[in-house]
């Protein structure tokens, strides 16, 4: 299989790789670059565990070809904490007991981040809608929804 060069920004740092054409972004991030925060739950676009943010949009990295990400700005959960300080969403997921096995957590946090970036004061329905593509088999959705609402409040207090 032909190798193609790919260059993008991952959590603020430049990455340049030669990857096999047809490689998913999920595999490129996990196996080539070593960011294992996006998880592979289904590899077919139904569980949301692999969710990342590409140019501000929520994307399933298992359905995104790495070679289409040239020049993109990619964010994953691994890059969310700044200077060792947890992002309000991470803090809220911790405090609200919104993680059990933790496998869905990075994807959930990415989906929640896109929501809060666009809708700083979401309603409960907004949160449910935003997380509807992410499956959790252990925690139960209620603590996760609560965590996102708590993070939204923390955000708006910071802004005020």
């Amino acid at each position, binding site marked *: 299989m032909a190798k193609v060069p790919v260059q993008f920004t991952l959590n603020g740092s430049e990455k340049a790789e030669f990857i096999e054409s047809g490689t998913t972004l999920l595999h490129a991030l996990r196996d080539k670059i070593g960011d294992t925060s996006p998880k592979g739950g289904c590899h077919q676009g139904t569980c949301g565990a692999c969710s990342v943010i590409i140019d501000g949009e929520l994307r399933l990295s298992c359905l995104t070809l790495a070679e289409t990400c040239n020049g993109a700005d990619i964010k994953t959960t*691994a890059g969310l904490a700044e200077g060792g300080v947890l992002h309000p969403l991470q803090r809220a997921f911790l405090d609200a007991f919104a993680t059990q096995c933790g496998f869905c957590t990075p994807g959930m946090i990415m989906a929640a981040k896109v929501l809060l970036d666009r809708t700083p004061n979401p309603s409960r329905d907004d949160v449910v809608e935003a997380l509807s593509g992410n499956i959790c088999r252990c925690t139960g959705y209620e603590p996760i929804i609560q965590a996102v609402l708590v993070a939204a409040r923390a955000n708006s207090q910071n802004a005020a």
Partner: protein
Amino acid sequence: MELRKDYFADVRKDGLNEIGQPRPRLDSPGHVTGKTAYFADRNFPGMLHLKMVRSPHHHARVRSIDTSEAEKHPGVVRVLTAKDVPHNVYTILILIQVGPEDETVLADGKVRWKGEAVVAVLAETERAAQEAAAKVKVDYEVLPAVFDMEEALKPGAPLVNEYHGQNYYLYDSGECRKVRFGDVEAGFAQADHILEQSYQSSPIEHAPTETTGCVVAPEGNDRFTCYTNTQAMFFTLDNASIILQMPGSKLHFVGGTVGGGFGGKVDVIVEPIAILGAKLTGRPVSFVYSREEEMQISSPRAAEKIVIKDGVMKDGRIVARKVTGYTDAGAYSRHSPYGAQKGAAHYPGPYTIPNVWIDTYCVYTNRTPSSAMRGFGVTISDFALEVQMDKLARLIGMDPLEFRFINAYRDGDMKAHRQPTEGAALIECMQEASRAANWPVAEKYMAMSSYRKGA
């Protein structure tokens, strides 16, 4: 959290340091930062990928296996069949003396369920392993199969598993687990009403978000590290040691991080063959179920059939209970003999019944082997028992919650297993449930207590 300290006030201990105190979970910081290391987050240079060739038939004799085309496929490093496995026939619970060994790591001469592992292919990439697996030729002679427990127990039914010799598990108590207490027929003779109902359940898949798998790395010195998401570390270590005929000191298991399991990761299926692959190739090996495999191959909760016959008095007392339970183990035992046995212990329910008769069977069929899942053996029992309780209450025109107060275990009551009840709290739980659900019961039930002085 609200602690109700008014219950058992004279016997409770309040010098507790942990109960009632919030404690942060140690692993959560790793989860929210994406740093928690699941087994598949380990990647080793030169890692091979293992894919299984699986039986397309429910029951068949394997006449021959031809791996020559697969071996020639670009990227293939090694192909494994039954003869490569040092101790190919095993059973998980042999460690606690539950035998006989009845399951093959790789099929040897016969397949007993659709999806059974026949040949393992190790290749440089997942794709090469997949393509090569498709080139393995297996010649099957299809045999009659049985999918229904009642059919399986009939004389002349196809024999599912030769290691048992009949289509049910032979306990030391005979063809089923039994509980006998009082005189059940005398109980029925005395009852005002008798209700017999049967209940049935389908297999249920756990569907963990992280699929089952492991990554094995040779350490040199003939020692292997196995990163796995098993829920049963020591079962896995010891069974791998038996299957591979290697001392446990050569096997280093790293686990503890499980991306959802619910009992589905208790069986020992992926680790031994992946370690064998690493041993025979000298390279790291990854064996991870695809989502399709997870849904089709991993053991579900067993299908069950339960027949309950109860004798009840007009005043609400249950005076006799007769239960026959059937657990569909599928083609192999795994944890099912234990599940069926748990059912036998559970069918009296948390109720004081003077006459009890219980038989539970662990039955073999040509279905996917079932195994552990959250309270297996008792969860479906509870569903059946509590539906039956509601029906009994309706039959005698009594409130279903009040009916349960009348029959609940209380301290000092003799259980059907001949253990006196101690430390019961069912009455108190039901009192709280009645308040929480806004389902009032008569004052005399609110005045009851499980605790009896001197009991």
